[in-house]
């Protein structure tokens, strides 16, 4: 195989002095699937931006088929056949699928080529779909299609522009397992057609499954490039993090005590008004972790929002330490020592324009400890923030840095620090490690278990089945707004068994006799 694209000793220093790349070397062979791994902040995104012409390297050379090239904009990148599928989709929601695919390169017709040629557009897209087996509905508006299809639209967009090298930036972060499988099939089909794929990811399982070679980045430098067949996840993660990483969460068996939260027959509607929770009943005891498994969109989001007061319930009970939570505001529920790590830290978990310190006291600013009369006590807040940053290993220059400038993992640590610092009796954690790197995942998991051992009732909702299985003592599986199974998380429990319930292929509820007792 010949070298198609090469980056040699690339350095990138941003005007504010941040050195994002400090000597990156990367060789991409024609027709390979090349995985690029590294922790958050290792410089993967910067590297890709440079390949796509969105940023220029400060020094170093990029070679295309042995010739040095300069990429000064997306158009240049497209010229050399480089196409990128961004992690956050670059789609226009109100345009149709086909309008999005041809955007910027529309077939034209009429006088002075003033008008769109929809006939040609349709034909070309149909041909693309047929060639690569990527099925989409060309006339549907992008805002109405599911995530997996949006990604296919992005890939078609890149193919339509004649890209031969396709960069996928964490493509599976938002996909369900089934969608991921479909994506991998498409990727394999593309490689068979002679395309080259650069695959950026956090998930080592995916690296092992699909890549030919893997390049590890750490702190802006290339550590090494390995043949995937000749390595293993442990080696890659050690290279990424610089130390051994535990893949299993170290925990003792739970010692559950009294029920902290008991939800009975809870009902709620989704944003569109359709029923999302159809009578959910569950119980979490002090000192145990209840995991909620399920394909995303089966009511997990609504369940968490309803319990934490962000969404109104339409029926049922939420008893917390003997008090009813339904009907109370989020603020009052929080004041009752309920901690909540929302699934989307960018919009609901943190205020991106506020500083780290401000984010850390978002839930505590009424606390007299941080007040001086009617004013905030800046000194106390600073002390508190510094302590928290130290305990939770938040990597930032100081506590006055805007939260929005933190990497995903660091921001999540800020949110978790805030929620844990109130010593919650009930801790509800959604997607605790989404988009978070391996080192931070290990840390966040161990913090959650520490709270459990300290006597808190913990609910963990995650799209990653492996995460639910690693953390939980019991696992409740949600399907279409109902809990279809509650399983004890023993060694004997397999992903396949949970997967069956996730797809709605069976039900199993725990202790039916207990329900009757309570009814009496």
């Amino acid at each position: 195989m010949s070298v198609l694209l090469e980056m040699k000793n690339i350095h990138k220093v941003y005007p504010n002095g941040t050195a994002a790349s400090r000597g990156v070397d990367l060789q991409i062979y024609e027709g390979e699937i090349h995985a690029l791994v590294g922790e958050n902040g290792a410089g993967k995104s910067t590297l890709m931006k440079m390949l796509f012409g969105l940023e220029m390297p400060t020094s170093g050379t990029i070679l295309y088929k042995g010739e040095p090239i300069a990429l000064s904009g997306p158009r240049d990148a497209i010229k050399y056949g480089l196409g990128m599928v961004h992690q956050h989709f670059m789609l226009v929601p109100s345009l149709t699928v086909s309008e999005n695919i041809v955007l910027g390169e529309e077939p034209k017709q009429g006088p002075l080529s003033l008008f769109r040629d929809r006939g040609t557009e349709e034909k070309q897209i149909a041909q693309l779909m047929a060639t690569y087996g990527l099925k989409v509905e060309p006339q549907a508006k992008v805002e109405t299609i599911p995530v997996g299809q949006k990604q296919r639209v992005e890939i078609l967009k890149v193919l339509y522009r004649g890209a031969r090298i396709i960069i996928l930036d964490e493509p599976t972060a938002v996909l369900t397992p089934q969608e991921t499988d479909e994506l991998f099939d498409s990727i394999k089909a593309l490689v068979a057609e002679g395309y080259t794929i650069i695959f950026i990811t956090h998930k080592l399982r995916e690296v092992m499954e699909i890549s030919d070679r893997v390049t590890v980045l750490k702190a802006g430098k290339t550590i090494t490039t390995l043949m995937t067949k000749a390595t293993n996840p442990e080696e890659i993660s050690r290279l990424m993090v610089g130390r051994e990483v535990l893949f299993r969460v170290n925990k003792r068996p739970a010692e559950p005590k009294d029920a902290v939260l008991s939800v009975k027959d809870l009902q709620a509607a989704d944003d569109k008004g359709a029923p999302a929770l159809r009578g959910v009943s569950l119980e979490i005891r002090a000192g145990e972790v209840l995991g909620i498994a399920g394909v995303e969109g089966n009511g997990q989001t609504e369940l968490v929002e309803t319990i934490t007061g962000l969404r109104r319930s339409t029926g049922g009970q939420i008893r917390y330490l003997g008090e009813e939570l339904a009907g109370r505001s989020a603020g009052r529920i929080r004041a009752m020592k309920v901690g909540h790590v929302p699934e989307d830290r960018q919009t609901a978990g943190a205020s991106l324009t506020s500083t780290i310190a401000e984010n850390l006291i978002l839930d505590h600013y009424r606390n007299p400890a941080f007040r001086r009369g009617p004013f905030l006590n800046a000194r106390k807040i600073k002390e508190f923030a510094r302590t928290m940053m130290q305990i939770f290993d938040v990597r930032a220059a100081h506590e006055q840095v805007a939260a929005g400038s933190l990497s995903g993992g660091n921001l999540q640590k800020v949110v978790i620090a805030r929620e844990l610092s109130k010593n919650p009796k009930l801790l509800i954690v959604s997607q605790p490690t989404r988009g978070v790197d391996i080192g931070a995942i290990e840390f966040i998991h161990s913090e959650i278990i520490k709270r459990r051992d300290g006597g808190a009732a913990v609910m963990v909702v995650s799209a990653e089945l492996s995460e639910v299985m690693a953390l939980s003592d019991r696992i409740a599986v949600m399907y279409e707004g109902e809990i279809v199974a509650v399983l004890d998380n023993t060694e004997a429990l397999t992903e396949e068994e949970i997967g069956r319930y996730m797809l709605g292929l069976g039900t199993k509820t725990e202790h039916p006799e207990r329900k009757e007792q309570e009814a009496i």
Partner: protein
Amino acid sequence: MWQSIWSQLVDMTLVVVLLRYMTPILLAALGGLISDIGGVLNIGLEGLMLISAFTSIAVGSASGHWLVGVAAGMTAAVLTCLGMGFFSIKLGVDIIIAGFAVNIFGSGITIFLMSKIFHVTGNYTPDQRTPIPTVNLPFLQDIPVLGKLLSGHSLMIWIALLAVLFCVALIYRTPYGVHLRAVGEAPSAAKSLGIPVNRIRYSALAWSGAFAGLAGAYLSMGMTSMFVKDMTAGTGFLALAVVLLGKRNPVGILIGSLIFGLASAITTIVQTTEGTAIPSQFVQMIPYLVTIGSLVVFEARKRKGAAVPATHTI
């Protein structure tokens, strides 16, 4: 009184008056629409109309030809918009603030120039009148009701109606229109595809200036034959309300403009009818009440669309 109003309704006077009032609202709203779709909502329509109204009548009477006047008015409005673009796109001023500035500027500069050039303060009526011509349709004008409905309108009324079709074609049938929508909605997506985001935004503002320019020219050379200080009297803001009501769609804009044109027409007819018992101040409130009413209805309908409001956005 009611009989008189009724008779005007039957003999199509209402429709004729409605079309006259609708035209400036419709033109300005189409301009606002294009800027809104491009993500640079131009709230300076009022000021732009004033600038164009003054420029067009001044240049029109000096040159002796209405077309030169209209072209000058449009040019002045477009240049003002490009200035807005310079401040908002290049220098990063909030587009709403830039629009506010244009509204204040438009009112001030026209009064200033009127006093400096023509040495009048309240209004300026040129000696040489150069009105935008009216279109009389032969044969049709002799048919009783239909003639009144279709013939004898200012050319600008027809231009306004054709402008709706023009905008539909521009927004939905051309690549430019798709780029405009992409830039307004997802600028980073547009940029990643090599679409020149800033250039498209400048062009969106220029379009809004061109349409507001036509609207302004009609005020001083079609509806009247003079320039009066602050003669727009809120038309630009009515147009803005229409932009918000029109659901980003030229046909919606047309419907909205018709509603507001109707409200203004009713106001005029009731006011000019002999023996009106209703105090004129109340009658003059009608267009503004319609504005508030329709915005409320619009919002209520939007809420109904999402039965349970998204909690995170609160």
